[in-house]
C-alpha cells in the first residue's frame, strides 16, 4: 500500500467560493482547494491533503506464476477481489476514526480483541493480500537456505515436518481463511497456524512470515476443489524464500532469535 504523491491543484475562478469538486482517485495524494471569497484582489488557496490506500502491484508480471497459479486467477484475485477491498477500505476511511493509522495498526485496532469493527474486514484483507503476493515469486518453492533453513529445522525438526504441518493446517480450515508461518514473540520461535476469514497473526501481535490465501477464489479456477494440490504447489513452486529471509531479518529487530554465529578466525 504505497501512498503516491500526485500534485493536482484544483481551483477555478477568482474570488468565488466554489464547491469542492472532490474527485477521489485511489492512487494519489489528493490536493483539494477550499476557495474563500474575500475582497483581496488575488486568490489565496488553502490545501487539505487527504491520502488513501492504493492497490499495490505484485512484484512480478500477472502471468509469472504460471502454471501453478494462472494469469486468469491472478488477474481476478488481484484486480477484482483485492481491488474491491482497497476501494471499500478507502470508502470507510472517508469517515473512519482510524484514518491516518498505518495499515498494520489499523488491523490490530479494528480487530478490537475479537469484536471486529466495520473497517477490520477490508483493512485486514488489503494487508493480507499484499503480504500474499509478496509471499510468492516465479520459480519459488524448493528449499530455503542458510539462516532460514536453520531456523525452520530448529523450530519444526525437519523441513518436511514444517511442510506437513503447514499443509495440515491449510486443509483443516472449515470455511474461508488463511494459513500462516509466523514468528511468535513469546517463545521466539516459528509456528504455523490457520485463521478464519480475514484474521491474521497481526491481530494477536505476532509477526507473519508466510501467508497463503485459502479462500476458494484463490484456487478454484485452477484447482477446483483440490485444495491439497494448491497447497503443495504453493510450497513446492511458489513460496518466496527470499521474502521469508527479508521478513525474518526485519523480525529480528523485534525478536531476539539468539546469538549470531560469528566465525572465529
Amino acid at each position, binding site marked *: 500500500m504505497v501512498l503516491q504523491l500526485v500534485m493536482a491543484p484544483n481551483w477555478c475562478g477568482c474570488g468565488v467560493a466554489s464547491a469542492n469538486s472532490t474527485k477521489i482517485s485511489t492512487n494519489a495524494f489528493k490536493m483539494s482547494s477550499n476557495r474563500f471569497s474575500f475582497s483581496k484582489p488575488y486568490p489565496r488557496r488553502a490545501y487539505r491533503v487527504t491520502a488513501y490506500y492504493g492497490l499495490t502491484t505484485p512484484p512480478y508480471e500477472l502471468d509469472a506464476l504460471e502454471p501453478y497459479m494462472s494469469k486468469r486467477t491472478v488477474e481476478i484475485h488481484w484486480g477484482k477481489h483485492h481491488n474491491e477491498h482497497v476501494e471499500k477500505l478507502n470508502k470507510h476511511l472517508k469517515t473512519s476514526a482510524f484514518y491516518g493509522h498505518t495499515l498494520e495498526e489499523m488491523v490490530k485496532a479494528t480487530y478490537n480483541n475479537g469484536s471486529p469493527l466495520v473497517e477490520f474486514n477490508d483493512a485486514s484483507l488489503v494487508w493480507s493480500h499484499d503480504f500474499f503476493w509478496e509471499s510468492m515469486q516465479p520459480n519459488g518453492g524448493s528449499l530455503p537456505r542458510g539462516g532460514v533453513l536453520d531456523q525452520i529445522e530448529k523450530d519444526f525438526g525437519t523441513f518436511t515436518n514444517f511442510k506437513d504441518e503447514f499443509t495440515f493446517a491449510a486443509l483443516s480450515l*472449515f470455511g474461508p481463511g488463511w494459513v500462516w508461518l509466523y514468528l511468535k514473540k513469546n517463545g521466539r520461535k516459528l509456528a504455523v497456524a490457520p485463521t478464519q476469514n480475514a484474521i491474521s497473526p497481526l491481530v494477536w501481535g505476532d509477526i507473519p512470515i508466510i501467508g497463503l490465501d485459502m479462500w476458494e*477464489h484463490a484456487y478454484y479456477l485452477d484447482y477446483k476443489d483440490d485444495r491439497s494440490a494448491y497447497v503443495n504447489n504453493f510450497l513446492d513452486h511458489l513460496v518466496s524464500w527470499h521474502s521469508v529471509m527479508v521478513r525474518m531479518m526485519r523480525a529480528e529487530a523485534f525478536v531476539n532469535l539468539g546469538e549470531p554465529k560469528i566465525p572465529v578466525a
Partner: protein
Amino acid sequence: MALRSVVSRKTLAPALRHYRSLTTFTLPDLPYDYGALEPAISGEIMRLHHQKHHQTYVTNYNKALEQLDAAVSKGDVRGVVQLQSALKFNGGGHVNHSIFWQNLKPVSEGGGEPPHGALGWAIDKDFGSLEALVKKINSEGAALQGSGWVWLALDNEQKILKVETTPNQDPLVTKGTSLVPLLGIDVWEHAYYLQYKNVRPDYLTNIWKVINWKYASEVYEKESA
C-alpha cells in the same frame, strides 16, 4: 424433508453387552441432470458441487459420527466436545445442500415460476411483494462476508417469514430453533465461481430463474398447518 441423525442403542438383555448401531449417511441423488439448470448454473458447477463438495461433507460427517460414537462409548468428554465443530460443519453441509438441491428445478419442470397460494400471500404480507423479497435476499446474500447461506425462513413461533443468513455451513436452526428453511441459497464461492467469478450479485440475480417455489410452498403449507 428434514434429516435426522439417529444414533440408536440396542441393549441386549441383562446389560452385559451394548450393541450400538450407527446410522450413516449417503449422498442423495439430484432430481435432475447436472446440465438441466443451465444457463443459470452451469453443469460443471453442479457436478463438482454435488459429486465433490456435498460428497465430502457426507463422507466427513460419517467419519465424525464414528469418532463421536467411539468417544461417547469411552466416556471421553474432551473428545466429544472437540468433535462438535466437525459435526456442525460437515453435518450442516449435508443438511444445507440436501435442501438446496430441492430448492432448484429446471425451467422445463417449473423452475422459476413464482409462488402461488398460501406462500405467495405470506410473502406479500411480510415483504410487500415477491420483488421486494428477492431484492432483500439478493442484497443480504451479496453482503455476506466470507462463506455462508442466505435463507427464506418460516418462523414457526411468530408465524412470519424471515430472511436470514448463516456463516460457513451453519444450518438455519442455529439462528433460531423455531426457524424452518423454505429456500436456501449457497453463497460459498464454489457455488458460482467457475461461472460468475467474483460477481456474486449476478449469480444471485440469475438463480431465481431455477428456484423451485413449489417445494418451498409445500414445506410452508406443511409447517404452518
